[in-house]
């Protein structure tokens, strides 16, 4: 046993360390240290030259003091002096000091580099190693500049000792990591790759780290390493446990090298050479087989080393993601570990399975372990293991098990550690949205989230539930009912009040028929929470109240009373006060029509990437992996959907701008203090004012849904008009091209300043439609009219409409208005004349269920034949006479011209004058066109 008597004990140092340990207090320690520092300083400054041993001892004491956590501002010079000592231990202490206390003092760096240079050229391997260790430990840019060209030479020189090669390889790696620009590839690189064949296992172990890092950056240059790595791995894997002598660790041959080889292979795709690939698959199979063999030792080191290789092999199998057999075997192996008595193995199995869940080959195999994983979530005592289980549940979730998994995650949330609650909430919210089949389940889930973990429900989550409720009318009544019930709990979270306020404000009418949730009951329930809430929530509630006045005129008096009381109308918070004042005024002077327009139900939100997903992406760590994986699986989700309806789950996944489409805490979109300046509040100006100052963050909501629909069957007319502005429109279309003239008329006698317009194609539309225009003059004089021309090109069929945003200043107030431009798919129709026989033949050809869209609806306008004919002609199709056997019916045919394709469309409209109903049927060669035309036309008759 090498006793330390061999070492170079320094008695003075030992005494000093003992003294420090003897100190009873921090003060005593500091006192003792200061005494020592003074002593060392005087020795260093003294006239008497210190011998090497004393210098070493003092430098070592300084190092000890530094490592205790105290600052050291001298002694560097003495340490540098030690570097040039020819006594090994002195040199060694000098290098240690320099490595620990790097100082960018340029004068010293020069001296240090000089000493290193001397040692590197000394041809004394121990000195060379010391110098290389120092470079690797410091790894500064200055050192890279000095040695980056020298070290590769040492590494590949024929006469370099093995131990020096090992140090040189890792030293070069460190320099490459800090200053890749200074390490130049060259002739040495190919020789480095061949170190994988070196006789000395230690050299291979060190070199492979360097090769792996270089391969990542220059994969082509190093690709020969793949076959070398495979054959080396194969030799290790097939060797008997004693073959490798001291490189066998607890009966496992070369575990570190094996792991590094498997890691290197993960920098490359599967080998193309069949023989190499075969050999590698054999290795991976052997590793999987060995996992099933009885252990050669009971020591944990044996199983750890063996399993380290196994997990690395599984990583490689997942990386290749091309061998279903191996993937499923890996999954089964991990399944065994899920129930292992070692916590470490359970943790790693959960972690590794998380990535397996994203492979299409093993997703199903992972799912079979759901019960075990749920059990782990419930029973594991270590939070980090429970966290892994939660991650895995999230990763293995799909339509088939979503309800079970979401339920388990919700119940886990009740006891989950605080540190992971927010992430859990996000994950539950995402799964609930992604896999919602009926949206009442989704609403229940989110409200449960708020109930269980309200504090951790971020804005994104409750914004999202509101967006979805607003966009899906099938769930609005249910949401109103559920939130109403949830609000009846004696203590409910403020987030619940926010959601409740918003939803009842929009859809309270849907449950108002029940006397238990009559308008006044709803209002009183909301208002009972008012005083416990923060300012933003109160602001939201005030907006809900004004919406109530519109929805339920009978609540007007009560609500006006509330708005009028001092605590509102004189509230010290300016936002609350302003809302109270404005809403009170609005409710007392505006006519019911105006109220109905201003306080109309929120229009659907544009579908964008789910803000929740965006938030989860921002959170780093395991979540991030699962999110990408989640997005990958979107295709699978789509298939399961049968592509039937583009629910928000798929739409939400479409990556676009990650800006949060927040409904803001504001129902009307009033962002800041925007005084309603038009004193005689006419309908038009109010409309403008309400939407003014919306700011860029507010959803660009078009206000002219009705106006827009009026233009489906006509091309000219007034698109929009209020007290200030009139916008007229003229348009013409040929083939897939169109031109639209917009006329902006200033109806006032005052100039509009900073008049700008902007036409945008939101989301996917920009891929479908190309709209070009020139900017207009920024000034529009009172009474004047200006014109703008839009050139439109239809690239493929589309459903949305381009948006026209208009901003200008009128009397100092910024006006901001967004309109839908009536560019609809039918504008690109070419009429097609055909005979009865042809029509029905084509009709039969378009008989796939998706090609047809049908709607039965009530007549909204006159059913006069001539009016109908005019509309159908305006649609752009040819109106075919004598085709339908029933003369009451109308049939039309046309071809929609887009740049990429032509879509044939046939239409049949069957009026029933008695019932005042229509049946509209469309068959088109493209499914999406049938749908869109049907939607557009159903509102025309």
């Amino acid at each position, binding site marked *: 046993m090498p006793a330390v008597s061999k070492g170079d004990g320094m008695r003075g140092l030992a005494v000093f360390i003992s003294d420090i340990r003897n100190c009873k207090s921090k003060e005593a320690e500091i006192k003792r240290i200061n005494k020592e520092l003074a002593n060392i300083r005087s020795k260093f400054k003294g006239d008497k030259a210190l011998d090497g*041993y004393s210098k070493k001892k003092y430098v070592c004491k300084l190092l000890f003091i530094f490592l205790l956590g105290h600052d050291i501002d001298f002694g560097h010079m003495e340490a540098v002096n030690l570097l040039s000592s020819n006594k090994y231990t002195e040199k060694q202490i000098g290098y240690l000091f320099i490595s620990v206390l790097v100082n960018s003092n340029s004068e010293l760096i020069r001296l240090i580099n000089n000493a290193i240079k001397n040692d590197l050229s000394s041809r004394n391997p121990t000195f060379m190693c010391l110098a290389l260790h120092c470079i690797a430990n410091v*790894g500064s840019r200055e050192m890279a500049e000095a040695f980056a060209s020298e070290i590769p030479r040492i590494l590949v020189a024929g006469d370099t000792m093995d131990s020096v090669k090992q140090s040189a390889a890792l030293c070069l790696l460190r320099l490459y990591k800090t200053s890749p620009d200074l390490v130049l590839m060259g002739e040495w690189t190919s020789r480095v790759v061949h170190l994988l064949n070196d006789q000395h296992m*230690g050299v291979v172990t060190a070199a492979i780290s360097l090769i792996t890092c270089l391969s990542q950056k220059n994969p082509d240059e190093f690709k020969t390493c793949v076959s070398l790595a495979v054959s080396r791995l194969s030799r290790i894997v097939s060797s008997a446990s004693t073959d490798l002598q*001291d490189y066998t660790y607890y009966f496992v041959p070369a575990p*570190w090298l094996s792991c590094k080889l498997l890691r290197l292979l993960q920098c490359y795709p599967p080998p193309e050479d069949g023989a190499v690939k075969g050999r590698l698959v054999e290795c991976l199979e052997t590793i999987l087989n060995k996992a099933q063999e009885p252990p050669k030792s009971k020591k944990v080191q044996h199983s750890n080393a063996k399993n*380290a290789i196994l997990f690395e092999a599984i990583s490689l199998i997942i990386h290749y993601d091309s061998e279903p057999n191996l993937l499923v075997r890996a999954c089964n192996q991990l399944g065994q570990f899920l129930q292992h008595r070692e916590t470490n193995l359970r943790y790693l199995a959960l972690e590794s399975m998380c990535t397996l869940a994203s492979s299409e080959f093993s997703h199903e195999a992972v799912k079979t372990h759901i019960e075990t994983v749920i059990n782990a979530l419930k029973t594991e005592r270590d939070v*980090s293991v429970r966290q892994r289980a939660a991650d895995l549940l999230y990763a293995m979730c799909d339509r088939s098990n979503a309800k079970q998994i979401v339920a388990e995650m919700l119940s886990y949330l009740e006891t989950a550690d605080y540190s992971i609650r927010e992430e859990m909430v996000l994950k539950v919210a995402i799964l609930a949205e992604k896999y919602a089949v009926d949206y009442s389940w989704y609403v229940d889930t989110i409200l449960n989230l708020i109930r269980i973990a309200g504090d951790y429900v971020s804005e994104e989550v409750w914004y999202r539930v509101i967006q979805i409720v607003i966009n899906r009318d099938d769930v609005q009544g249910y949401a109103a009912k559920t939130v109403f019930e949830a609000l009846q709990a004696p203590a409910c979270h403020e987030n619940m009040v926010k959601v409740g306020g918003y939803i009842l404000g929009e859809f309270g009418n849907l449950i108002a028929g029940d006397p238990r949730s009559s308008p006044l009951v709803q209002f009183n329930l909301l208002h009972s929470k008012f005083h416990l809430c923060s300012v933003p929530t109160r602001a939201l509630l005030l907006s809900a109240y004004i919406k109530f006045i519109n929805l339920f005129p009978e609540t007007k008096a009560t609500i006006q009373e509330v708005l009028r009381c001092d605590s509102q109308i004189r509230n010290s918070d300016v936002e609350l006060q302003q809302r109270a004042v404005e809403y009170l005024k609005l409710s007392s002077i505006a006519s019911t029509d105006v109220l109905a327009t201003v306080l109309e139900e929120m229009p659907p939100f544009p579908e964008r990437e789910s803000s929740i997903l965006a938030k989860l992406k921002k959170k780093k760590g395991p979540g991030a992996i699962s999110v990408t994986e989640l997005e990958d699986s979107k295709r699978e989700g789509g298939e399961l959907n049968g592509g039937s309806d583009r629910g928000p789950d798929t739409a939400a996944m479409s990556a676009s701008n990650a800006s949060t489409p927040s409904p803001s805490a504001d129902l009307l979109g009033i962002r800041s203090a925007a005084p309603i300046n038009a004193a005689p509040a006419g309908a038009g100006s109010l409309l403008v004012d309400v939407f003014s100052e919306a700011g860029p963050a507010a959803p660009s909501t078009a206000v002219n849904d009705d106006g827009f629909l009026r233009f489906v069957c006509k091309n000219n007319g007034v698109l929009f008009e209020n007290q200030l502005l009139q916008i007229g429109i003229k348009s013409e279309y040929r083939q897939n091209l169109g031109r639209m003239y917009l006329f902006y008329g200033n109806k006032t006698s005052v100039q509009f300043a900073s008049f700008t317009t902007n036409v945008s194609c939101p989301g996917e539309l920009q891929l479908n439609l190309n709209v070009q225009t020139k900017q207009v003059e920024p000034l529009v004089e009172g009474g004047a009219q200006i014109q703008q021309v839009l050139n439109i090109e239809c690239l493929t069929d589309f459903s949305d409409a381009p948006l026209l945003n208009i901003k200008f200043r009128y009397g100092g107030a910024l006006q901001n208005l967004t309109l839908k431009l009536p560019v609809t798919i039918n504008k690109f129709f070419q009429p097609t004349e055909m005979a009865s026989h042809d029509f029905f033949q084509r009709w039969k050809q378009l008989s796939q269920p998706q090609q047809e869209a049908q709607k039965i609806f009530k007549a909204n306008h006159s059913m006069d034949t001539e009016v109908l004919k005019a509309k159908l002609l305006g649609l752009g199709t040819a109106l075919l006479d004598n085709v339908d056997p029933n003369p009451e019916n109308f049939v039309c045919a046309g071809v929609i011209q887009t740049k990429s394709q032509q879509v044939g469309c046939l239409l049949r409209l069957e009026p029933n004058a008695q019932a005042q109903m229509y049946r509209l049927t469309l068959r088109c060669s493209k499914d999406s066109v049938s749908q869109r035309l049907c939607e557009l036309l159903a509102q025309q008759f």
Partner: protein
Amino acid sequence: MSSFQMQFMLLFSRQGKLRLQKWYVPLSDKEKKKITRELVQTVLARKPKMCSFLEWRDLKVVYKRYASLYFCCAVENQDNELITLEIIHRYVELLDKYFGSVCELDIIFNFEKAYFILDEFLLGGEAQETSKKNVLKAIEQADLLQENVDFQTRLFAGVMVPGLASESSGLFQN
């Protein structure tokens, strides 16, 4: 995907005293102190049967307790936890072999040796030489090179203060 580059290794006692620190990534002294403080607290708060890995900031911490000392390594998130655990074990074996039944006091009084052994085993956070024989051979060769001064007996019996019982108990006792 990186190879197994370790970010840092810390050795600290059950009382939270730092006994060795090795940093493989450039950090300021202030950051090092902050990380040390946070991590020592986190690890000491964990219960004995918990798993040896924990996610910490964006790193993965692998730790194991040997008698009175905690050995704690931070690696990157995708790194191999089990092999890191065995890196720790091999280092303890090296210390044990060199000092002969190593205890915490050996590391306190011969801290420089602990650093030298670590440098032979790991360089720049990567395994340089995993053979126990080869590492010890390198250290012993160096010891033979030393000048013939100041022979001391191990642990300096004359100047020793009685340490805590735990500090003198062998790391491999359990």
